[in-house]
């Protein structure tokens, strides 16, 4: 009789594993993840009430973004997907990093990321890549998380901590 394993929900570990199959270069993968987070959340908005629910919505938006990136990388390749992401995200990031921009960002994760990028000079591309790489590395070494709520919470906290 087969041993029943705990169900592994949609989470960063499974998504990044799938993405890695199409993007073997760690630098490119890191850049894709970094840009995907920004792109998925830069116009994030929700009417959900509690802090925890908002956090869950944010990380689910990242999951959705990663799934789109996976599909695009499968169809084209990682490099093309990255170029497309950069085309949409770079102008927004550059504008947001202007001192007078004063954007109110609804997503905590993007707020944290932009605060970090603000201090990084004009090489935000490189910084995003490194943050993305760190996320991939930490998620991979942590391994899969069981339980839907647990995985949402732990994924959110991991991304939050790394983007700071």
């Amino acid at each position, binding site marked *: 009789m087969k041993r029943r394993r705990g169900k592994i929900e949609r989470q960063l*570990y499974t998504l990044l*594993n799938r993405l*890695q*199959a199409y993007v*073997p*270069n*760690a*630098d*490119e993968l890191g*850049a894709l993840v970094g840009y995907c987070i920004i792109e998925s959340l830069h116009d994030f908005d929700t009417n959900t009430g509690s802090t925890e629910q908002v956090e869950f919505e944010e990380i689910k938006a990242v999951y959705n973004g990663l799934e789109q990136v996976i599909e695009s990388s499968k169809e084209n390749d990682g*490099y093309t997907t*990255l*170029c497309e992401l*950069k085309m949409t995200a*770079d102008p927004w990031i550059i504008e947001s990093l202007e001192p007078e921009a004063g954007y109110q960002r609804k997503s905590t994760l993007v707020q944290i990321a932009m605060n970090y990028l603000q201090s*990084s*000079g*004009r*090489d*935000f*591309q*490189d910084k995003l*890549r*490194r943050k993305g*790489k*760190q996320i991939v*590395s930490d998620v*991979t*070494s*942590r*391994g*899969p998380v069981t339980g839907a709520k647990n995985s949402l919470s732990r994924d959110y906290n991991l991304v939050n901590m790394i983007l700071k």
Partner: protein
Amino acid sequence: MTEEYRHIFIPLTDVYELGGTEAFKHLERSPEKGGKNLMVVPMTFVSNLDDIITREYSEGAEAALKVLKDLDQTPLDDHEGVRVSELTQGLDLAFIDKPALDKDHFSITNLVKKIQEVWKQDTHKPELISSRDKYHIKFKGRGIKVRDPQFLQVTADIVNEGLIDGNPSLLAELRQNNLRVPLEQAIQIMGRELYPNQFLRFAGKKSGYEYARVAFEREINPKTKRVTGMINARLELLRDSEHGRQISVGKQIRDNVLGIGPLDMEQYLAMQYGLLNPNVDLFFLCGSKGSGKTLMTYACVLDLLLHYDKGLRQKRGMKGDGKGGFFKQTVLLKPNSLMGGKDRDVGALPGDLYKKLKPFLNSYIDAHTMTVLGDIFPFDDLLRHPKYDTDFGAPRSEFSKNKIQDSAYLPNNREVMEMTYSGFMRGRSFSDTLIILDETQSWTPYEVKTILDRAGLGCKALVLGDPAQIDNPECTPAMNGLTHAINHYVGNHYVALINLTRNYRHPMSEDSEGWNAPRRGR
């Protein structure tokens, strides 16, 4: 009356082991700030350091003890057993011995109490410094302040400094200005420092990434022949032809080196601008398992040692009419903890040395079989003398006299490769040698420093490693010989760094990450 100190530090013995005399340098208070710091050294620590040196040699511990030995110790009035020495203008050292605190009653808690009794400071309680997590957990629980030795920590992210992502404005500027931009302008556009031999990568072209390099001419003193500076420093976009990844050594151009060619641009940059670059004397090559760093390094090192026929010698840019490769010999060094430590004792030398060291050479033996050399002679011929018996046994096989790719031979006057570990490096120095420091993430910073100290004229050091594969309990991703050495050296004109980020391995190897496989402790 005791002096009022700004900060009182108690470094634990692991700080001395890892950093040697660096602790003294970094804990002193800078003259601009005024005031002084105090470093407390209980006699128990001095005994512990001595035990460490006796049990398993530590360069850092020995260096620290030497500094302590040379200090004049002035007894403190009204506090028997406490003696103070001035180390620098910004740092005093306090030795605490019996009867103030003897070995039988020694504990960190008692030490802190004693310090607070002697130096009644209202602000700035004494702080322990240690890299060991267990001490942080233990002493924080007792209300004692503990901090990491920040001066010994370098973020592992530094391995990414060799190849960074550039921004579109800079790429546009490069394209508009005949593919080059003065370095100062590039720095301004990027908003960050750029280093000699650093690479920038730009995404945007349909065909793939573009790469640029921080290039310069070396300013050489005509009398001493030493490089005194850099002139004409600029950022230069690599030509499209380089994306074909053909390797050039002087004017010799080929697809591969001893059968090993670069599989992607990162590997190409590592081979062309690092391993085979005559102007780079210290090259850091990082990458995880399966990235190809050992294989590429092995092929390039052997190529640089081979004796080529005259015509090719000149084409490759070798000086003089004589024989010989770019270097006389290569020395392969592995960490003490892997080879010479108590868990993996190689035993006394000499005697059947090859059999003892062979387990540590397996990655190079594998690399040898993947190059064209694997079909010509066995790996151990590189460790044997061409004519005489040595510690490695009989002379080389007859196969080693075969011509390699119709144009080169193994050196016939000495062993090609020597293998050793840091425990046997004392008193040695090298010239015209390719020094390979392997698995440098498992060296302590002090061990790497002592090796690179020994590089003489004509040497080139290749430092290989991966901060994710540390196999030494003394080291962490933030504190290891690899990241520390990169942090110290990067920025010099003779230094380059590449981190290989693409892996060429089976999915089962990739999937083994994230598997927290349990194992028995030793």
